[in-house]
């Protein structure tokens, strides 16, 4: 099977969209935080926590959407902790973010061991199943690729759309963007920068956790310790690549996922026997760094990103 065949197969694009879905959730979450001026490096750990929380809740008897809701809430809880430290206290967003990632990861692993002390392989759940949207899924190529996905994938795209609308068409979105551009403009108009930024971090963190939950509840049906595997860091690169715009970020995630799906398929071709598999596995990380370097010259970065706002500090 050569490259051309791969790129024209519906199963390839279906895989790309599936791989993109958790990235879309988490990238949108990160984008919301950064638009408000907070870099959230807790993303990796929050995704781990979300993956676990959603899965374990379903395992314990909750319906699938209940599991998604639990993941969302767990993500928001870690987001709340992040935002308290990084917004009113203005602590280094780098250190707080790394700390949240360490904390969320270790709390997750600890809980896993406490809840499932004896198991050698984690139990499986009945994950989200693909839902074929009537009519649309019959379109050749596009149908199977786009419209035969699980409900959580559709939710990812709807979320990106809604985020775009809220950010650019509503007073709330304007306030969020202004908080990331010049917080004193927000404060001078009588709005609370602290509340806006904290709210953005909490909500954004919730979406990150749902991105993690996608892995255990839609892409796979079980939880493994290394399953997030740096996807959070990749999403941070995707936010930059998408120039802090939800639409572009979604395109970036799909492009990225397509590369990922491609490398999996190329590994199985004759090339895969020549090139060590580690090279293929490196590709997502290398691409992320390349994306960061390529976009480094663009000036769309929110002007007050990583700048704490303390009114009246004397």
């Amino acid at each position, binding site marked *: 099977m050569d490259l051309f065949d791969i790129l024209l197969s519906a199963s390839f694009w279906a895989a790309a969209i599936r791989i993109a879905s958790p990235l879309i959730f988490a990238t949108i979450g990160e984008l919301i935080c950064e638009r408000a001026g907070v*870099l959230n*490096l807790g993303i*990796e750990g929050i995704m781990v926590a979300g993956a676990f929380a959603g899965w374990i809740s379903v395992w314990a008897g909750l319906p699938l959407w209940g599991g998604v809701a639990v993941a969302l809430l767990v993500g928001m809880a870690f987001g709340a*902790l992040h935002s308290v*430290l990084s917004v*009113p*206290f*203005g*602590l*280094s967003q*780098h*250190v*707080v*973010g*790394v*700390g*949240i990632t*360490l*904390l969320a*990861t*270790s*709390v997750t*692993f*600890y809980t896993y*061991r*406490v809840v499932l*002390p004896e198991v050698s392989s984690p139990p499986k759940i009945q994950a989200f199943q693909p839902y074929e949207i009537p009519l649309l899924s019959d379109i050749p190529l596009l149908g199977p690729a786009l419209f035969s996905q699980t409900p959580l994938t559709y939710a990812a795209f709807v979320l990106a759309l809604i985020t775009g609308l809220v950010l650019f068409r509503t007073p709330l979105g304007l306030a969020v963007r202004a908080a990331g551009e010049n917080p004193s403009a927000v404060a001078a108009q009588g709005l609370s920068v*602290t509340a806006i930024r904290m709210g953005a971090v909490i909500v954004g963190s919730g979406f990150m956790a749902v991105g993690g939950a996608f892995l255990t509840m839609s892409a796979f049906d079980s939880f493994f310790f290394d399953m997030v*595997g*740096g996807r959070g*860091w*990749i999403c*941070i*690169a995707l936010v930059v690549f998408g120039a802090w715009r939800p639409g572009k970020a979604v395109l970036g995630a799909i492009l990225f996922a397509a590369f990922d799906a491609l490398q999996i398929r190329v590994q199985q071709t004759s090339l895969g026997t020549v090139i*060590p598999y*580690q*090279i293929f*596995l*490196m590709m997502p*990380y*290398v691409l*992320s*760094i390349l994306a*960061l*370097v390529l976009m*480094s*010259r663009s000036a769309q970065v929110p002007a007050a990103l990583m700048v704490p706002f*303390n*009114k*009246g*500090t*004397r």
Partner: protein
Amino acid sequence: MRLEPISQPSLQRRLLPPAVAIAASFLIAALLAQIAGGNPFAVFGLIFKGALGSKFALLETLNRATPLIFTGLAVAVAFRAKLWNIGAEAQLYAGAVITVVLGTGALAWPAPVLLPTLAIGAALAGAVVLLVPALLKTRFGVDEVVTTLLFNFIFLLFVSYLLEGPLKDPMGMGWPKSSRLVPEARLPRIVEGLRLHWGFALALICAVSVWIIDRKTTLGFEMRAVGQNPEAARFAGIPVTAVILKTALLSGGLAALGGFSEVAGLKGSLTLDLSPGFGYTGIVVAMLALLNPIGVVAASLFVAMIFVGADSMSRAIGVPTYLADIMLASALLLMVLAILFTKFRVRRD
């Protein structure tokens, strides 16, 4: 809410918040231990006993602290200059790789020549690994947090490739593992019969050296100036970019020495599980030490104690070892908050 700087913080003001932070992280761990069905007092008793209760335990703790001193110093040096090196993990492996490449027979030199060569080679490798993100930062303005994090994944995959390919031990029964170091490439024990190698002494020497660089040399002055206010540093004529790159070299080199020390002192060969996250734990160590190089030694001992003790406690009563990770992660977050309270007071107005 408003933060007001304290002009002359009292001794109590400077010591109390960090102490409360550590105590609070113990309290959190105690609660979680209780949830897991372990009596907190028993849990902590077993942790201390497992880490300090016997000569063997104590030496194990010192051995575990050794790589943490290296990565902790690497992080402290970098963070002081506001170079956010989260990639000590990759740099540590870079040092380990060089140690194995040169130390498994490639150089048939006597130990007094070979060991320094390995150390220098390792440090250079780690320095180069951090130089790449540092250059991306200074040339393109790419945030080094993300690039160093991504490099950790890339480098670990690279090591995995090496261990299944060029560096694979032909006698290794198919395991991804390097050949063993030649005897001349092994760091001897400090005292014959005690399981503590010279890597620990090297770590202490590095800590003192970093302290001297920080306080007594122009480089230390420049690094602090660049870290505190790069704009003022540039205005004063300090070559900011060069200082950031020098910091990267020093930081990467220190982390890589940790890899050298682990392979040459403890393990004797390289496997993919050489580091259970020493690079990331180095961040916790450095923050607990308030980025002070001497404090890094103390913080490493503390962190190693928690880890070694938690291992032993977990074997005894089954509370998961991840309790130690939670404790240290919460200590990290509480400590950055505590540092804030040593300098500012919160006012409502």
